[in-house]
C-alpha cells in the first residue's frame, strides 16, 4: 500500500487504510425481546403505570 493511501497530503495526518479494518465475517445478532407483552403480568402493568407518565411528562 502506498504512502498516499495512508497520509492526507493536505493535512499530513494518517488516513484510515483498508487493511486497518477488522476482517469481514458477518454474524447475525437477532434483537431480543426484553419488555413483557402489554397483557402480561402485574409487574409489567405496574412498571408501565409508574414509569411511562414520568418519561413523557
Amino acid at each position, binding site marked *: *500500500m*502506498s*504512502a498516499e*493511501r*495512508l*497520509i492526507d497530503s493536505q*493535512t499530513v*495526518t*494518517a*488516513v*484510515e*487504510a483498508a*487493511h*486497518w*479494518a*477488522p*476482517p*469481514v*465475517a*458477518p*454474524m*447475525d*445478532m*437477532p*434483537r*431480543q*425481546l*426484553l*419488555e*413483557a*407483552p402489554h397483557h*402480561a*403480568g402485574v*409487574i*409489567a402493568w405496574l*412498571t408501565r403505570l*409508574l*414509569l*411511562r407518565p*414520568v*418519561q*413523557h*411528562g
Partner: protein
Amino acid sequence: MARVPVPDFPTLTLRTAAIGFAVLAAGAAAALLAAASTEDGVHLWDVVRTTLIFVTTAWLAWGAAGAFVGLPNRRHRSVPPPLTLPQPPTVVLVPICNEDPVTTFARIAAMDGSIRAAGLSVDIAILSDTRDDLAAARERDTFARLLAETDGAGRLFYRRRMDNRGRKAGNIEDFIRTSGGAYHFAVILDADSLMEGETIRHLIARMQADPKLGLLQTLPKIIGARSLFGRAMQFSAAFHAPVFARGLARMQGATGPFWGHNAIVRVKAFAESCGLPALDGPPPFGGHILSHDYVEAALLARAGWKVELDETIEGSFEEGPDNILAHARRDRRWCQGNLQHARLLAAPGLAPWSRFVFVQGIFAYVASLFWGAFLVASIAATVTAPPPNYFPEPYQLFPVFPSDRTKEIVTLALGIVGLLLLPKLSILGAAALSDRTRRFGGKARAAGSVLAEIVLSSLLAPVMLMYQSRAVMQVLAGRDGGWPANQRGEGRLGPGQSLVAGFWIFAGGAIALAAVKMLAPSLAIWLLPICLPMLAAPFLIWASSHPIARGLFTTPEETDPSPVIRSFHRWQACLSQPAAQPREALDAAA
C-alpha cells in the same frame, strides 16, 4: 441450549442465608425503633420511619452478608486448564470514545506484547466511536505509529463508526455483525483496561474447558490512582473487593455478573443472545439501554449460557476516577442505567436471580433517597409527637414519666454502624490471619489503610448520598444525563471548581441543621455526622482530589507492578515523544 441455569444446592443455601440475615437484621432494627418511638402511641410518622429503617437496614445487611459469604477463601485457587491447540481465534475488543490516543494505544501496545510473550495469536480491534474529527485524526496518527512500531499489521485493527447508535453496546454489536464470524472468543475491555497475555490465555482455556460457559468476568484491580480519593478507592478495590466479589460469585452461581469490560465472551453465545433493542419512549427510561452489561448477563443466562465471575484471576486492571466529581458523573450514568432496568423487571424468560440483580441495582441508588426520607420522617415524628402526658389517669397523685428509650436508639445506631464496619474489619482480620496483609505493606500499614479508608468513606458518605439522591430525582423527573466522556488522568480540582460543585450540598447541610436546631433541637446531635460533612463538602471535594504520597493505601500493584503495567508505562513514554521520522514511520505501516 438448555434454558436458564438452575442454581445448585450450595448456591441456593447461601442465597437463602444471606436474604434471611438481611430480613432478620432489618426486623431487629424496625423492632428497636418501633419500641422506642411508639411508646406515646402509634402515629403516622412512626410507621413511616419504622418502614424506612426496615428497608434501609435490609439493604445494609444484604451488603454485609455478601462480605461474610465471601470471607472464607476458595478451597482451590482456579488453576487454568491447559490451552487446547489449535488455539481458537480470539479478539480483544477495545471500544473507545474521545480518549487520549497516546495513553489508550500505549495500553494496546503493552497488551499486544504481553499476548505474544504468552505464545498466543490474538487480534486486537480498536472500535472508535469518537465524534470529534480532530480527535479522530489524532487516533489515526497514533494508530499508524502503533502499527509501525509493533509491526502489528494483520493483528491490530482500527475502525471508526460514523453512526454511534447504541453507544458502547452498539459499538460491540456493530463489530460482531461485521466481523464476529471470524472469532470464537472476544475479550471485551474498556479504554482504560489492561490485561496480561497470561490472563487472556487463562480465559481462553477456561472457555475451551467449559462449552456451556458464555461469559467469564474477572475482577479488575484499579491502578494508576494518585489522589487521596483515587488511592482510597484503589486500595478498597484491591483489599476489600475480592472478598465482596467472592461472596457475589458464590451467591450468583452460574447467573453471574457482567461489568461491561475485563471479561471474555463466547462470540456465538453473545451474538445469539445479546442483540439489545432500543426501548420505546425517550430517555431516561426509554431509548438505548444504558447499563447494557447487566442486561447482557441476564440474556446470556436466559439463553442457557453460564455467566461466571472468578475473582481469583490475576492480571486484569482498570483505572478509576481520581476525584469525587468524576465519580459522581460516572455514577449519574450508572444511576440512570440501573433505574432504566425497572422497565426490564418483567422481561420474559429471565432467571429469577437476574430479576433480583436488577432490583438490587435499582435499590443501590434508591436507597440514598430512602435514607434521606428516614431522616425527614424522624424529624417530622419528633416535631409532631404529642407532649408527654404525666397524669394519664384522672385523680392521679404522682406523675408518670415516660420511660427512657435511649438504650433502644443507641443499640439501633450501634447495630447500623456495625453493619457498615464489620465487613471491612472482618476482611482486615481474615487478611491478617492469612498473611494477605504482607502484600499491602504489612499488618500495621494495612490496618492503617483500612481505618483511614473507613474514616474517609464515612466523611464522604453524606456527600455521595446527596449526589446519588440528586441523580435519582433527575432521572425520575425525566432528565437524560447522556453518556459524558470519562475523565481520565490528572484529576486535581481547584478551590473555585470545588466550591461551585459542592456549594449546594453545603447549603443543604446548613439549612437542614438550622431547621433541626429550630424544630427538634434534641435531634441535632444525631444529625451532626451527616450535616458536618455536608457543610465541609467543597473542602472535601477539593482536598480529596489532591495527590498523596505513597505509604498509605499501598497496594500490591504499586509495590510490584505487573509486567504489562511496566510495559504500558514504557510505551506511554515512547508514544508521547514525536516519532523520529514520522513520515517513514507512517509509511512503514503500509
